[in-house]
């Protein structure tokens, strides 16, 4: 039983490491931005010609804000 549990844990840990990596904030941020974009598309709230700029700006803002948030953390911390 513990062998199966270990295999299942290892399987999910592997895919977590592969997809999410060592910075879950970025992965979560991408999911939130794209989920919000889907809602905008479904509601047809933004013209399709403007949507690329809105999504691109939101994603760039995500990266910039995540790097500035690092300033609040311990200096030289080699983590996310």
């Amino acid at each position: 039983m513990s062998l199966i549990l270990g295999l299942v844990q290892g399987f999910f840990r592997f895919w977590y490491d592969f997809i999410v990596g060592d910075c879950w904030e970025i992965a979560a941020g991408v999911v939130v931005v794209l989920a919000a974009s889907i809602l905008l598309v479904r509601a047809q709230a933004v013209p399709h010609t403007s949507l690329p700029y809105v999504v691109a700006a939101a994603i760039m803002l995500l990266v910039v804000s995540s790097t500035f948030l690092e300033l609040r953390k311990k200096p030289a911390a080699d983590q996310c």
Partner: protein
Amino acid sequence: MFTAAGITLIAAVFVASAVEAVEAFTIVLAMGLTRGWKAAICGTVAAILALTAITAVVGSALIHYVSQSLLQFMIGALLLIFGLQWLRKSILRSSGLKSVHDEDAIFREEQEAAAKAGKELRLGLDWFGFVVSFKGVLLEGLEVVFIVITFGLKARATDPLAMLHASAGAVAAIVLVVIAGAVARRPLSAVPENTMKYAVGLLLSTFGVYWSVEGLGFFSPQGQSLEWPGDIWALVGVLVAWIVVTRGTVIMLRTLVRRRAPALGSAQPSELPSEAAGGH
């Protein structure tokens, strides 16, 4: 013969794959030298076989059963998750908020961990060396496979040999890294990995934004891919925007880090890495 698009595709996949190959090589080298080459090579071969099986199953399933716009959205989202993490790290390294990626240091850490690990034999192999080599090659190899499939699939519309070109770029990078590593018999720390990671981060993030926006059309009432103003030329605009945004962020962060440095005793401006994020 190679077209301009084919050469660009090969170059893009080559650079991205070389970064992953350097990381995998560092892990296998550390295991080979400390735990024995038999386990390290068996782990590497097992990972390559697993990669082949995963590529055959997932690749053909994606191509045959998933609509183009949904595929664009999924690929774009994954490229964004990978690319943004690389860009973010490059920005932090360039601004002094994170130490520069050092293959020599990683190699030493891997060696120390391998030396401390107990000796457990399974199937006649040193299990620690096998598992670490297997996992390292599988993780880095999956990223290479992913890059080859995504870039190859997308470029197929304009280049019928795109998958072949993308595969050639990846294989060339891996072969070159292995040969260079075998000749040097040490981690490839001379490779400007941080600069390459910044370049690959820019590339993946650019394609990630482009494809995820196109793929959003899957969720529209029409269910068709959205189109960027300027079509394929929008890629150039997105790339330039990323360069401006990342360089601007590095400059602002460096200023803030310099102000904080005396008070916190963190990285001094003179210690700032010069290579990451195209820093000087």
